[in-house]
């Protein structure tokens, strides 16, 4: 059984087709790369999967459940988490708050017990705090616990955003250009980090990335998009040799040698 089944969806903005007939099936445990030039429609795919946009035509299924047109928070609840191309942290909140907020959707205590600090809530909050600190330790951000998230260096912000996504307890994680703006060493660390969390959290990951080193390095399966449609699919070697891909993409602006 596949975890995610994107069934031939199309997204139109006015007369413009941003994504056309996009198909994708992911089985649990996969790490899939989604590449393509700027404006190819990759982020739009993410936005449809996470409920920010509703596809104009056809449906998306998660664990055989139709999740088309469901609000983003409900989608987070069923187990899909994501990061953003332009990092969207809660900049004026502390680093620890940014992680703890990820646990909010699983909160069992009701509003009254949270306001009045009943023991059940206090216990839950403490456990959320512990779990959040553990997550922070994983990316070595625990010493920034009480800093404002917006004041962190860029690379740390990226990691924090991933950690926050993990806090929601996802089965599927969508990463939108996690390596953007990183230097080669950071990128390398990131690659091993992504593989590590995939193992540790038993995640399935869908990854948009411009840095070919990352995609070719860690993804077994890669999808290439251009002008809203999928032009190729296959393993790294197949993609590298696909003439369609080379024409549309690799030849244009990327040198990954």
């Amino acid at each position, binding site marked *: 059984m596949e975890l995610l089944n994107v069934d031939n969806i199309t997204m139109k*903005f006015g007369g413009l087709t941003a994504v056309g007939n996009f198909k994708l099936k992911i089985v649990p445990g996969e790490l899939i790369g989604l590449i393509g030039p700027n404006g190819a429609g990759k*982020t739009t795919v993410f*936005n449809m999967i996470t409920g*920010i946009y509703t596809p104009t035509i056809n449906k998306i299924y998660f664990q055989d459940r139709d999740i088309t047109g469901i609000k983003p928070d409900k989608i987070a609840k069923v187990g899909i988490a994501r990061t*953003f191309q332009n990092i969207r942290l809660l900049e004026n909140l502390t680093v620890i708050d940014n992680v703890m907020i990820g646990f909010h959707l699983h909160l069992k205590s009701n509003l009254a017990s949270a306001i009045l600090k009943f023991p059940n809530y206090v216990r839950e909050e403490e456990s959320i705090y512990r779990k959040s600190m553990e997550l922070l330790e994983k990316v070595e951000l625990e010493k920034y616990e009480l800093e404002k998230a917006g004041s962190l260096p860029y690379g740390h912000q990226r990691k924090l955003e991933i950690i926050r996504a993990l806090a929601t307890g996802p089965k599927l994680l969508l990463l939108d250009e996690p390596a953007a703006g990183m230097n080669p060493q950071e990128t390398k660390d990131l690659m091993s980090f992504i593989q590590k969390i995939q193992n540790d959290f038993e995640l399935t990951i869908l990854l948009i990335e411009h840095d070919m080193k990352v995609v070719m390095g860690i993804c077994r399966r890669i999808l290439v998009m251009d002008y809203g449609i999928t032009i190729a699919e296959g393993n790294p070697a197949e993609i590298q040799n696909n003439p369609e891909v080379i024409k549309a993409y690799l030849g244009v602006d990327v040198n990954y040698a």
Partner: protein
Amino acid sequence: MSLHLVLQNLANGLSLGSLYALIAIGYTMVYGILRLINFAHGEIFMLAPYFLFYGVLIFHLPWWTSIIAAIALTAVTGMLSERIAYRPLRDAPRISVLISAIGVSFFLQNLAIVIFTGIPKSVHRPAFFKRLFQFGEIRIQSTLFASVIVSTIFLTLLIYIVYKTKTGLAMRSISTDIETSRLMAVDVDKTISITFAIGSALAAVGGILWGLRFPQLFPLMGMMPGLKAFIAAVVGGIGNIPGAMLGGLLLGMSEILFVAFLPALSGYRDAFIFAILILILLLKPDGILGKNVQEKV
């Protein structure tokens, strides 16, 4: 309802609506560029007819000189208010600017009370503006023609300025992104000053015509027209100049027709306007002519 009553009410609505439209155009310009609800717009509007009144009555200026002086003075007041109360807050949180605008509004209102006293003053209208045009049983004030003509002229003029001149280009660029505009060597401060001058001049023209239509001045006279003009601007699509005009006409018309068709509910007149506003916001949040801007994710 008899036909002539319907027609009379349509004329009434047009008359009120065209005045709303004029004020709304100025409102929408300032909002479109600064994203600032300029609560002081109504007070700027109130000052103009006072200036006119004092020009004619105290300084014995001829009407036309006085009108021009009043518009100029009001435009300067508008620019000054921007210079003093909004410019220093360019990088501050938007709410601070809004509070500053409320402060300017309170300040001008009370300054007017101190200077002009709270006692209403009558406007001595030139003969032309007292004239009535009668078509059968329907009576139309001359101000209706004046305001329709004037607002059409200004609408055209503004569209020309915004879309065909360099200043207009600068305005449009600031309205999209103030930071980038700075980088592109747009003189942001100057352009905003000009915008305020134009917006305030429009408020002045609206205020003067208002004073001629409703010949009475009092320091609080700008409050409700200011709020209505803002509603008109929102209904029409804020930042959109033809939209403001349309919104103003629509608002004036619906106010009048509401009372005309439901006289028993005349006490709910303003409530009806707010209900329309909320309904339009819910159905078409960007107003009737507004562009639907989707947030980039």
